């Protein structure tokens, strides 16, 4: 459904991906607009991570087209993709911080290496510090990833993903393997980043409560905490839910429609709204 006055940021057109004959994504189509939030739910192996990697151009689709900021990336060379990737921030499932670099070097990496980002040397350290302060890890500049806890690594990886202030941000299972308190802290950071930068946000998760937070909470910059969004604000948040099952999209719509679904697979993910 084409949206009025909104720029399309990410569009999948009948995308199919297969590995060694095994279909990972089958005929997936959707469109995300500027400033939208999209929560992608699904069981393990349902193709959630593959979907993000296809959106990033890390995996090529077997058929179909992927448009990022209006450009078809499905047939682009690796070199051409570097320009597009400069506009995307991605949090990987395992954080994927570089073991051999300290946190400062990890967070500075996109500023120094993204060909499309021309960051003057003098500005690198202040921006790294700002990004680390944003995720409340200001004192870890000299530490190596192995010296941090799982939650701290995830936060450092968020800092690396957002340090370039990309207009499209993708988070792969940001709360996987974390305790409930740390998971809430991570989700609060994601929402804070979304509300501060007004970026298009894709969150892949198998936890419905993560999607619920994204759809119904906003960051209060005065209080420095999350708070429930008022009814008028919810319209602004515009969160779309999508459910994947064995590589196929089985649901796409808002939270009310998701909760109203009687599908047994979808029901497994959905709990009543907090």
């Amino acid at each position, binding site marked *: 459904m084409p949206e009025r006055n909104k720029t399309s940021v990410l569009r999948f057109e009948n995308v199919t991906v297969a590995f060694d004959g095994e279909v990972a994504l089958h005929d997936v189509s959707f469109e995300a607009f500027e400033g939208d939030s999209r929560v992608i739910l699904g069981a393990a192996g349902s193709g959630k991570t593959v979907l993000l*990697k296809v959106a*990033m151009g*890390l995996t090529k689709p077997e058929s179909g087209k992927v448009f990022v900021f209006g450009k078809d990336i499905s047939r682009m060379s*690796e070199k051409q993709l*570097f320009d597009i*990737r*400069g506009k*995307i921030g*991605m949090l*990987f*499932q*395992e954080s*994927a*911080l*570089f*073991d051999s670099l300290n946190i400062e070097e990890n967070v500075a*990496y*996109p500023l120094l*290496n*993204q*060909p*499309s*980002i021309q960051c003057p040397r003098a500005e690198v350290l202040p921006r790294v510090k700002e990004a680390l302060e944003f995720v409340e890890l200001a004192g870890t500049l000299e530490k190596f990833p192995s010296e941090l806890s799982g939650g701290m690594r995830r936060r450092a990886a968020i800092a*690396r993903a957002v340090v370039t202030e990309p207009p499209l941000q993708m988070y792969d299972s940001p709360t996987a393997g974390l305790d409930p308190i740390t998971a809430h802290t991570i989700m609060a950071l994601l929402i804070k980043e979304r509300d501060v930068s007004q970026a298009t946000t894709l969150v892949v998760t198998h936890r419905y409560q993560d999607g619920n937070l994204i759809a119904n909470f906003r960051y209060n910059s005065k209080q420095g905490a999350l708070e429930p969004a008022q009814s008028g604000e919810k319209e602004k948040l515009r969160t779309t839910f999508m459910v994947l099952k064995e590589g196929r999209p089985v649901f796409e719509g808002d939270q009310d429609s998701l909760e109203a679904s009687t599908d047994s697979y979808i029901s497994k993910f959905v709990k009543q709204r907090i």
Partner: protein
Amino acid sequence: MVASEGGDLTYLLDLLKEPVLAAQEFFVLTGRAFNNIFRRPHYGDDIILQMDTIGVGSLPIVVMTGFFSGAVMALQMSRALADYGQVGRTGTLVSLTLVRELGPVLTAMMVAGRNSSGIASELGSMKVTEQIDAMRALGTDPVQKLVTPRLLATAFMLPLLTVIADFVGMFGGWVIAEVFLNLPARQYWSSVWRALVWDDVTQGLMKPLIFGVIISLVGCYQGLRTTGGTQGVGRSTTQAVVWATVLIFVVDLLITKIFVSGGA
């Protein structure tokens, strides 16, 4: 009968598919790694770091291997030469064997065991923890950043390590000649020096250069194709050492044949 033959052919082709694909991927990686030598950006710091890890880090093991292989060669050869009353030529045999064969091959084997496995496990771990994907996502070509520096560092350092191993091996031979064979030092070193011609030196440097390329590329290739978590990393590491070792021997035979034919 015809159907059976057709089935056999298909089965045979299926069996060949994987090794042919692996060979193709290996040569593509090799091409990209060499191509990147002439393309920007160049990761000078990574090359220096790898030279330190591969070259300086391998020095103790290479020195020890060189010393003892030279000493053993002197002992073995002196026994054989004694039958002909030519113990005085022990230095000649030690020198020729070390420079032409043992120096390059043993050094390459040590570096393969130490570094091909190290490269495969490091890159393999990066692959399974999505660090390679992250590198691509953050605007870096993993071949340019990870493979080319290792290729250059190994190809540069292995000949240097081989020269050191050769000299230490000759020194080991001299210790045996002095202590057990009662050969005057002057006679030993003179026979060592006179035995060598430029052809031997060329062969002795050409081999480690090519072995260095093999060791680094096999390690990188196995690391970058790692799948299956930590178990996969272990598998890649083993594969890297096995394939690097086998290829070193195969290529050693080819180079030796070229030099022997050339000399003849």
